């Protein structure tokens, strides 16, 4: 009997380990492949020059800048709205059918395919509000796509702040807003920041939402205002992989490497913020 239990234990251990490896192996392989194929393309010229010869040569500078603009714009819209909505839902809203409806809506929004957000952005921002294909439309579309994740992450972060901090503050006669501003938010901020950065890093790599709302096929000059179109890394990668013939693979892999490099840097920032605050945390 004990032998059988030991055997089961070993099998369970192996299955669990294998399942974990199944997650890790593709990540490692993808990263290695892109590094191997993309690194040769890396040069100062590739990062700082406009594309030339029908995007077969030169660099991807406008796409890098475009993606930075889009991520920045997305953050400007999604961060305040997301945090404020999360505060309302977690700290103010009563637990009634309306709040529960909103919760369900947010959970469902997180599962909506990104191309649907793209169509929504096309309908609302590009056409109805007449922003045209512009950084503004694209950033707003990406912001709406990121909101459910930011709200969910922020609510989780707010939820980890102990109830007795809130009660201690309220019991001293502080208002709810004073309590939130002085006690709850400072302690929830690291969690909110990491959640937001992860959502933004996902937005940076999305193609579908920017397809109809902002991304330009080929636009070597840099955008001058938020009403301009711009190039963006994920869409550029799609274009040079499917629309441009006789292109060297290293240009494609180089672009992919820059994109995942940016995403990695953002995720790394999130990790550093989390580690920094965990060390400072007193409870």
């Amino acid at each position, binding site marked *: 009997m004990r032998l059988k239990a030991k055997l089961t234990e070993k099998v369970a251990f192996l299955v669990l380990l294998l399942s974990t490896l199944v997650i890790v192996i593709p990540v490692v392989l993808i990263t290695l492949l892109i590094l191997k194929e993309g690194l040769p393309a890396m040069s100062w010229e590739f990062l700082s020059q406009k594309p030339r010869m029908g995007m077969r040569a030169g660099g991807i500078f406008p796409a890098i800048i475009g993606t930075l603009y889009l991520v920045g714009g997305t953050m400007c819209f999604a961060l305040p709205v997301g945090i404020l909505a999360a505060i309302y839902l977690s700290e103010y809203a009563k637990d009634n059918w309306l709040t529960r409806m909103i919760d369900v809506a947010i959970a469902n929004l997180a599962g909506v395919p990104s191309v649907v957000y793209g169509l929504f952005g096309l309908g609302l921002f590009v056409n109805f509000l007449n922003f045209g294909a512009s950084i503004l439309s694209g950033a707003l579309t990406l912001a709406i796509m990121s909101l459910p994740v930011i709200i969910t992450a922020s609510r989780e972060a707010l939820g980890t702040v102990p109830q007795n901090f809130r009660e201690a503050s309220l019991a*001293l*006669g502080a208002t709810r807003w004073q309590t939130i501003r002085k006690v709850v938010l400072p302690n929830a901020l690291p969690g909110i920041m990491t959640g937001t950065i992860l959502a933004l890093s996902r937005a940076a790599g999305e193609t579908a939402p920017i397809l109809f709302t902002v991304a330009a096929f080929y636009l070597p000059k840099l955008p001058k205002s938020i009403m301009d179109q711009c190039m963006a890394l994920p869409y550029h990668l799609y274009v040079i992989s499917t629309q441009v013939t006789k292109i060297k693979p290293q240009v494609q892999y180089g672009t992919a490497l820059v994109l995942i490099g940016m995403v990695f840097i953002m995720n790394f920032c999130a990790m550093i913020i989390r580690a920094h605050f965990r060390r400072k945390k007193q*409870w």
Partner: protein
Amino acid sequence: MVDGAAAKVSIRDLSVYFGLHRVLKNVTFEVHSHEILGMIGPANSGKTTLLRTLNRLNDRDTHFRMTGGIEIDGKDHQKMDVNLLRKKLGMIFALPAPLPLSIYDNVSYGPVVHGVRRRVELNEIVEQSLRASFLWDEVKDRLDMPAMKLSGGQQQRLCIARTLAVEPEVILYDEPCSGLDPISTAKVEEAMTQLKNRYTQILVTNNTKQAARVSDRTAFFLTSELVEIDETQRIFTVPKDKRTEDYVSGRFG
């Protein structure tokens, strides 16, 4: 002191429900100015609920409902501004609940949210409050230290100082010594006794001996009801109710 003293808090026919569950049933009594009122009784008898109803922390619970009346200085406490009410009725929790701030910022927190801005004034409030709760000598050289690093007993006295800093008139203690060792307990009790001439204090405790040591009058609660309230000496020597006698003499159950 007791006879003819003015009623600071007056509770009339108070019943409290959470959903359909009744936690307090037709409770009526008064708390006199400058007395320490002990509230004893087994767990789930409604003592803590009564405290949290008094300073309206229970309002945060959507299932909370109350009937009957509570008056503070003759004013209906439902009609008072909730933030001013909570300032007036300070609360000390069972587990010391310092905020994740420095010692100084914990004590100055209340005055700051109520609009005190001048550093000199804050400094003075912090020192006075810490002196009043007998913590000043232990922490005066390290006011910048995180409050979480203090010992349990020091944290609880910090919480008392923090409450005193907003100049309450009534202090509610919810089993303030349940997590403390006997020496820390003695210090908290000493602080309570010293605070008597300036504040009205209500002490919920699971430790009957503590009520006997510090309170002027004692109320005994059992299964949502107030069984008996009288001078502490009488409750512990000649209680009117058999159940009170059983409880205070440890024959309960």
